[in-house]
């Protein structure tokens, strides 16, 4: 028979009350408070907060593979302009294989005997491809390799990758989490679900000689071995712990996250539907739309919506895309996505007809007016 249990606090409540006890007068609490709250929001056992996403990935790999090894990552991580592995590449002996994230066979086929970590992202950018986290997590579990998922663009309000089988979760906090574009930082959450002993692939966690005081990290805590090594051995050595001001800013942002994500999602959906019906637009990508290649996965994994990113191609080609950007007034450029302001960019550069919008918090009618006017100008 089913037994009724006490209900855990809803993520909206955990977020709304994030900044308690971590004000500017308690700077020594800010980083830990952010780590604890992000862990609770994800259902993880704890977290480590770093100065940025590249530093968080460096921390994950320094913790798991100080002797080097192989990493399989989604192709979105191969972007030179925003190289999230920029810091990890400097670690000794690491090799990377990038795969088409939407092809489970590619993940399985890329795994080698020395593979230490799989790295995906809930939602890619600029093309908002959705990772089938349960499918890739099953591959990871079968191979005895942890799966790390960058969930920056969905936040814990839309998706909790640990619930879908991921083992580690990463959040950049500058945009969506913090709600601002003027601070940077990232949080690495440990789900406490991976069986490091059964895997046997990560000597740094298993060997007494690699542990603290002659105790292997798994003997210290079978559940928290990764997190303890990351927090106590690696983060202090790397020197990339988040600054208190950045952590406190993110906590303040968390207070309104549930409301902001709902507006980001609603605005993105309105813009995507408008664009799909417009003659000047040849293709629209937003996974909430029926007919989108990832609509089924998005409906299954993201019942609260599928993020604020919309990508579309202009029928008039690259020239029309350039004109559109010039004619838009409300949409800002050269700004990271996820803040209050709607952002427009041309991820493929001047020769591409693709435009990417990150929906902000403005009223949807104003965004539609601006977009309609600019599309008209672009068609001239």
């Amino acid at each position, binding site marked *: 028979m089913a*037994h009724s249990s006490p209900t855990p606090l809803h993520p909206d409540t955990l977020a709304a009350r994030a900044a308690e006890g971590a004000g500017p007068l308690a700077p020594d609490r800010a980083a830990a408070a952010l780590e*604890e709250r992000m*862990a609770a929001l994800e*259902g993880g*056992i*704890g977290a*480590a907060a770093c100065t940025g996403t590249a530093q968080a990935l460096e921390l994950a790999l320094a913790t798991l593979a100080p002797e080097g090894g192989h990493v399989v990552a989604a192709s979105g991580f191969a972007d030179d302009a925003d190289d999230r592995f920029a810091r990890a590449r400097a670690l000794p002996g690491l090799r990377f294989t990038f795969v088409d994230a939407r092809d489970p066979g590619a993940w399985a086929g890329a795994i080698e005997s020395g593979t230490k970590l799989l790295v995906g992202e809930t939602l890619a950018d600029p093309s908002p491809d959705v990772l089938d986290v349960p499918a890739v997590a099953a591959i990871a579990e079968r191979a005895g390799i942890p799966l790390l998922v960058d969930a920056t663009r969905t936040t814990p309000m839309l998706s909790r990758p640990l619930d879908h089988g991921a083992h580690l979760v990463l959040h950049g906090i500058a945009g969506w989490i913090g709600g601002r574009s003027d601070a940077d930082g990232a949080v690495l959450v440990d789900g*406490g679900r991976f069986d490091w002993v059964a895997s046997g692939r990560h000597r740094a966690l298993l060997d007494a000689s690699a542990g603290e005081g002659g105790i292997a990290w798994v003997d210290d*805590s079978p*559940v928290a071995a990764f997190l303890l090594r990351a927090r106590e051995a690696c983060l202090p050595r790397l020197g990339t712990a988040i600054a208190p001001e950045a952590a406190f800013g993110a906590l303040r942002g968390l207070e309104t996250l549930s409301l902001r994500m709902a507006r980001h999602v609603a605005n993105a959906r309105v813009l995507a539907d408008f664009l799909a019906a417009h003659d000047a637009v040849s293709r629209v990508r937003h996974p909430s739309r029926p007919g989108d290649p990832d609509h089924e996965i998005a409906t299954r994994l993201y019942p609260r919506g599928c993020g604020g990113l919309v990508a579309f191609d202009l029928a008039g080609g690259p020239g029309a895309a350039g004109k559109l950007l010039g004619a838009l007034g409300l949409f800002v450029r050269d700004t990271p996505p996820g803040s209050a302001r709607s952002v427009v960019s041309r991820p493929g550069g001047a020769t591409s007809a693709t435009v990417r919008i990150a929906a902000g918090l403005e009223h949807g009618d104003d965004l539609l007016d601006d977009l309609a006017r600019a599309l008209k100008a672009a068609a001239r």
Partner: protein
Amino acid sequence: MIVDSGGHAVHALAIGDRGGPALLLVHGAAMDRASWRGQSLPLAREGVRVIVPDLPGHGASPGPAASSVEAIAGLLATVLDAAGIRAATVAGHSLGALAALSLAMRHPQKVSGLVLFGASLPMPVGEAFLAAARDGDAAAIEMQAQWGHARLAPLAPSGMPGLSLTDLARRQVARAAPGAQHAGLAACHAFVASDADLARIAVPVAVVTGTRDAMTPARAGEALAGRIPGARTVRVDAGHSMLAEAPQACLAALREALE
């Protein structure tokens, strides 16, 4: 160290100075040695010889979980013998506290002091909790995670910086062997000791209570202390998982017992 107990390997963390005062730390139902991390490592660094077993079916120790407090006490005696420790200060949390108490009653020569965290006698466990644990229902994990911490603990600063304690407890309970949670809770529920048994305890005893403990309320711990000659009570601001919620205060209570 690994100790053979009735054909089952009991894994234990053995750290600190072999010549130092001996301290045996016993975790609670569905937990493991990591429950004591806030105390075991600092004390080992201070020269205490610390032994922290994973009870069978918990942590690294395989096998079915012991079904009675007395059986756990027998296992603790085996662990002390295997470590060559004649007498130790024995500290336990919850189920582990009852096992420490039972060890002191059955093998008084092996115990030089007792520190009982989150303890009461009797230690009744609600029918719904027992039934959910018996059925392997996930509700039992949620009950232990939430009732085992101060109310609204996820909104408060964690006793272990950077760790989400209720989520950590969920994972620890989920990781215990099938049936281990129920065996531990049922053992707590069934354990009895008479006033005469308690009156025979002749070593220093400290009962550490959590002011926000919903599972073994502070007043129940104080009632237990009142039945043991000379026992003192220490109050800490925490729920039932006081080792993690108030690690420094619990460490201080252990240091005092070792003096």
